[in-house]
């Protein structure tokens, strides 16, 4: 039996995510984080793992995490509802735009709005990074929390960033390599 209340909550939550997901990338992480943790669906660490799973797959982060979270909360029906809810708002908007004002990006008010929206999106992404770093021990939250683990995590973080930014390694290989490093150091 499907849990209708849970499905409804998944639907409403990801409908909202879909409606504001400009770019569909990591900017949506704080929005989804807020909702997933607020609903008691998962802890911050589980949410980080969700983003890792979402980042390992093709497809947009917002859609992918809707599928993973939907599955965790309500199984296969949950993942279907999550995926549909997250694409529904843009689907409707696309149809309206395509039918009525095709060159929406040419409108001056859109350009002016994006002048302020883009830096906010950058801020959302940086906030997600800070919140994940604090929640997963990459930045120690207290002086006595600094230990072997902190240094290893910091090392993995720096190596990953360098691989992405400097050597343009594809994220999937970065995630896999850091997983290997994790098993080596933490098992």
């Amino acid at each position, binding site marked *: 039996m499907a849990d209708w209340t849970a499905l409804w909550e998944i639907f409403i939550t990801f409908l909202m995510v*879909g409606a504001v*997901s*400009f*770019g*569909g*990338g*990591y*900017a949506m992480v704080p929005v989804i984080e*807020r909702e997933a943790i607020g609903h008691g669906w998962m802890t911050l660490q589980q949410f980080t*793992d969700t983003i890792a*799973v979402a980042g390992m*797959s*093709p*497809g*947009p*982060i*917002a*859609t992918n995490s809707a*599928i993973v979270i939907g*599955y965790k909360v309500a199984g296969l029906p949950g*993942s279907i509802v999550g*995926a549909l809810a997250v*694409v529904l708002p843009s*689907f409707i908007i*696309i*149809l309206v735009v*395509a039918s009525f004002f*095709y*060159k*929406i990006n040419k409108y001056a*008010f859109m*350009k*002016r709005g994006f*002048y*302020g929206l*883009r*830096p*906010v*999106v*950058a*801020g*959302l*992404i*940086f906030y997600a*990074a800070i919140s*994940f770093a604090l929640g997963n021990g*990459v930045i120690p939250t207290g002086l006595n929390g600094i230990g072997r683990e902190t240094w290893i*995590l*910091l090392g993995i*973080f720096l190596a990953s*960033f360098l691989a*992405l930014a400097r050597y343009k390694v*594809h*994220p999937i290989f970065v*995630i896999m390599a*850091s*997983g290997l490093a*994790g098993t080596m*150091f933490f*098992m």
Partner: protein
Amino acid sequence: MALTLPRQWSRLSSIFYCFLKIGPVTFGGGYSMIPVIEKEIVDKERWMESEDVADVFAVAGSVPGALAINSATLIGFRLAGLPGALAAMAGVLLPTFAIVLLLAVLFMQWNDHPAIEAAFQGIRASVVALICYAGYKISKTAIMDRMTFAVTVIAVLLLLFAKLHPVVLIVCGFIAGSFLVYVRNRFGWQTKLETGKPDPEPGYMMGDGI
């Protein structure tokens, strides 16, 4: 153009199949699919011109939602109306859905295993790096002057300390944009509103949709 039913169906299925092939390329759903779209839609199927593809991506990036899904929907709509949009969206979404679901199922079966637990401890650190890099990339087009830099800093502070809901911030950002451009115009400051061409680097997404 009223296509006869069998022709309509064959058109829809070719749209669906075409985007089914493109779907797995959208690692993170970004501009990485542009060359593939050019090859499949412009060169092979001759459904659109190259300039049309540029237009599609400009519009797809200005509305909410992932670039990959938006552009697929838009192309599908232009080719065959609402059924075309549905076929294209289903095609681009389905491979992703299957792969993510498989990974999620595997992950939830095995996440208690000590090796997987240890692996994910390492992976969490690289997810932070992934997000930092996404932020760094979008900053290059988002932070163009002191004002936009200030907006970014204020956004981070409001999220960290005022625990403002991100959605509120997104709406405020859009409104603030209009206001700031107005102020800049009053002072006669030049404002760069175009971001230019997107980074052509094999771009696995990362919030580069806008």
